[in-house]
């Protein structure tokens, strides 16, 4: 049976069972992850998952039921179960859910692709990754070389009782290398283009080609080996330049999450946490310096948070979150705002949509990384994330990076290992004094953003160019 027929059956059954509102999402998700370690294929995971999730509102309470096992009878059963779940929730008094109005969407959309990555023969993918590992292993002293390619495609058919009829297919591709050096009781790694399996973007095989894994492999491997012999970064307060890879995660943790309105309203208090930002802070709270402007833009080409409609059928939008340092907006949904910013996203068929980041960008300034380094008499260049942690209101954070280069007199100097930096969110963003320009601005992918119960994973994007922060505490010490 076609997905549209299943969703239609489910909606009819939900209304018959008493739902005042219902939406049904049929989702098919295909993934292929390939890992080559040294000279052998370590892991090829291919998965094809489809199912249907039905969300209903009954007496102002949400209910949701989902299954991978779908036939017409099961679709109707699931709808009735969702209504039963919603009715049970009414056992606890509370303000009823009201949805902000939204024009029903009737459309289809797909990620533009130059070359469908799923059509690239497995042998071609394996050959590329073996070559990327060989190029790393040409560097003496390297312990292990890894290379990865990840393909992801999700088709969503979303129908609602309000008349939404959306059919969209999102395709994303990732690739990376990881060089590991081991010695004297230490382990160091260098990754390219990013850590945790590389760079991910919306698009096809062209994302893999752009990463130039083989061309970058010798440099990356050599840096991993150099890190083993590098001194530990001493504790100090100094100027730091974060590269785009690290900055994207800084934006993710300390700007994107705190400005999710469900967190601000306490809906994620028990698990992921809340936010130091309050609903009344829009237009009033200084979040950072005037050099800081952040937007959520679900229309950015190549972003992991790029789509045509969110999982409530609200069109993709570009929304200012921070304008010249002042809070300007939030990531919102139909339940939490008078007009949704289109940020409701579910982790496949089996999960209720939650407010998630789309593509949350630090807007570019001007100039290139070389110019920014030349303009920095004394400081550090911190490169590629290794570790991250932030408190449950998104105030105190600590990050670790793979590599830190000293900057002296506007030039890069010695390499340090095991670098960390920490701070408090608004103080840190208040110390931002320069962001590189569009030529250095890249939409980085974060494919592993966790939130919600049951746990949901989201794939989000962050445009970032290297940026400079003053008076940052680096190195872990007793403060």
């Amino acid at each position: 049976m076609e997905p549209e027929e299943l969703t239609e059956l489910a909606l009819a059954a939900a209304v018959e069972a008493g739902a005042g509102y219902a939406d049904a999402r049929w989702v098919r998700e295909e993934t292929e992850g390939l890992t080559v370690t040294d000279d052998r294929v370590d892991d090829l995971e291919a998965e094809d998952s489809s199912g249907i999730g039905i969300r209903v509102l009954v007496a102002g309470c949400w209910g949701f039921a989902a299954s991978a096992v779908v036939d017409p009878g099961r679709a109707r059963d699931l709808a009735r179960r969702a209504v039963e779940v919603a009715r049970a929730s009414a056992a606890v008094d509370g303000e009823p859910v009201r949805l902000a109005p939204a024009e029903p969407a009737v459309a289809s959309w797909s990620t533009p692709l130059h070359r469908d990555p799923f059509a690239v023969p497995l042998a071609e993918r394996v050959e590329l990754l073996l070559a990327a590992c060989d190029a790393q292993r040409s560097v003496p002293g390297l312990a292990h070389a890894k290379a990865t390619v990840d393909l992801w495609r999700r088709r969503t058919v979303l129908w609602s009782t309000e008349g939404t009829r959306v059919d969209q297919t999102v395709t994303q591709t990732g690739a990376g290398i990881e060089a590991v050096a081991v010695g004297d009781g230490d382990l160091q790694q260098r990754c390219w283009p990013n850590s945790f399996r590389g760079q991910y973007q919306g698009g096809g095989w062209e994302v893999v080609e752009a990463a130039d894994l083989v061309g970058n492999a010798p440099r990356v491997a050599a840096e991993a080996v150099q890190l083993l012999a590098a001194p530990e970064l001493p504790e100090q307060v100094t100027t730091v330049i974060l590269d785009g890879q690290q900055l994207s995660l800084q934006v993710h943790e300390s700007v994107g999450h705190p400005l999710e309105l469900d967190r601000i309203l306490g809906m994620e208090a028990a698990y992921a946490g809340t936010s130091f930002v309050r609903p009344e802070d829009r237009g009033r709270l200084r979040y950072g310096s005037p050099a800081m402007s952040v937007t959520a833009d679900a229309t950015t080409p190549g972003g992991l948070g790029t789509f045509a409609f969110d999982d409530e059928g609200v069109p993709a939008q570009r929304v200012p979150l921070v304008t010249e340092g002042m809070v300007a907006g939030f990531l919102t949904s139909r339940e939490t705002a008078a007009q949704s910013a289109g940020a409701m996203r579910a982790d496949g068929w089996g999960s209720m949509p939650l407010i998630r980041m789309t593509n949350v960008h630090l807007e570019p300034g001007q100039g290139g990384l070389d110019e920014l380094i030349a303009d920095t008499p004394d400081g550090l260049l911190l490169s590629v994330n290794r570790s991250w942690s932030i408190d449950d209101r998104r105030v105190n954070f600590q990050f670790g990076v793979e590599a830190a280069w000293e900057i002296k007199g506007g030039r890069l100097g010695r390499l340090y290992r095991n670098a960390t930096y920490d701070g408090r969110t608004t103080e840190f963003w208040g110390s931002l004094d320069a962001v590189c320009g569009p030529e250095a601005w890249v939409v980085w992918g974060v494919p592993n953003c966790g939130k919600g119960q049951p746990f949901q994973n989201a794939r989000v994007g962050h445009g970032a160019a290297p940026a400079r922060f003053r008076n940052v505490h680096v190195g872990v010490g007793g403060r």
Partner: protein
Amino acid sequence: MTGFGSDRLLELAEAALGTGGDDVEALAWRQAGGLTRFAASRIHQSAWREDLWVRVRVAVDGNRVGTATTHAADPAAVRATARRAVEVARTMPPDPGYPGMPGPAAYPRAGRHDEATAAADPATRAGLVAGVIRRLPAGVAAAGACETRELEIALANTRGVRAAGATTAASFSILADAGSGTGWAEGTEPALADLDVAALGERAARKATDSRDPRELVPGTYPVVLEPNAASVLVQWLGWLGFGAKAYDEGRSFLVGRLGQRVCSPLVTVVDDATAADTIGVGFDFEGVPKRRVTLIDQGVAAGLVYDFRAATGHGVEPTGHGLPAPSSEGALPMHLSLLPGQTRQADLVAGMERGLLVTRFHYTNLVNLMETTITGMTRDGTFLVEDGRVVGAVRNLRFTQSILEALSAVRAVGAETELAAEDGYRAARAPALAIDRFAFSSATTF
């Protein structure tokens, strides 16, 4: 829609056999359950979900291995998936280290399947939530979740393995918010009836009110008592950092060069045991190998590793039953870790501390240095200053950056009561409270 049945699941797995290939293995997995979430003392999300998948692994030409997975529940789809795995295998390069597949074995009893938990309906979960919320003291609001779920696993291969098992789990977590202070409690049991949700609610509320008006404390190294939830996080992380034989072989383990040596206090013994009465699991791993109890740290001495079939074959030892679903670049992992309890009541651990901190829970921990086993994270939902053996007030939350092994080397006493906890919801470990003489807090936050 509950109770698909592990025997029926095994029949589904068996459909993959006989579709070609030298070796064929089919792992079938089904999980179904409901989760009711609440925040600001109202239920705001509630869901029921059922997932089922069959992963087929096939070897052709002796050592070309491919896998494919389907989420469909009919034998025809499983057979089609097996044929897809054969196609994948034919395109793969030879794997010289492919060890074949395990043969049949007898499996130990493990886990517990409670019919009432498997069948728990949303009204039951909502009723438990409503009861806890009703009993909250004035000025205290609550957030949290009540979950019930059933897990069924079956595995069949062409070497004769036929394994099937089922287990259930119920959990209740509550964050109580008393304005300037929050408190936390959670419990996980194989059966919903064994969860004392009222006691959990009372504990969280008491912690919340005790946490009001926290004072600022200068970061530094302090003696601590970690309650079981916080202590469990240290054990969970150790499980990721090097007990697997593959990680050890590749030099990615903190145990490299330390097996047989003292790595922490003699008061610390860590085992992995899926067969213990209080764990949630089945008696075989994802390759069909019987799960065994493995002592990983024995009275402070690094004592062992866990092996999947590949690593065990390479080392010439028996696999320990810790294989993950194939293919796995990670190798074996301990999934049922437990730090064994001591003799000291939890309350007496606090009474024995002259000046230090009592920590309820950690938040957002992450690895800083693998070989040093250094992690960082925040305290949350109940961090208290202890003076002369008594809690004298709450403190603002602190960030710790601490080597786990160094902390476990400074253990002064081990609590008698244990709890099963999981910071991120899936890598659970059982632990008692720990009294630790030195624990490094590197910075502080504002609440």
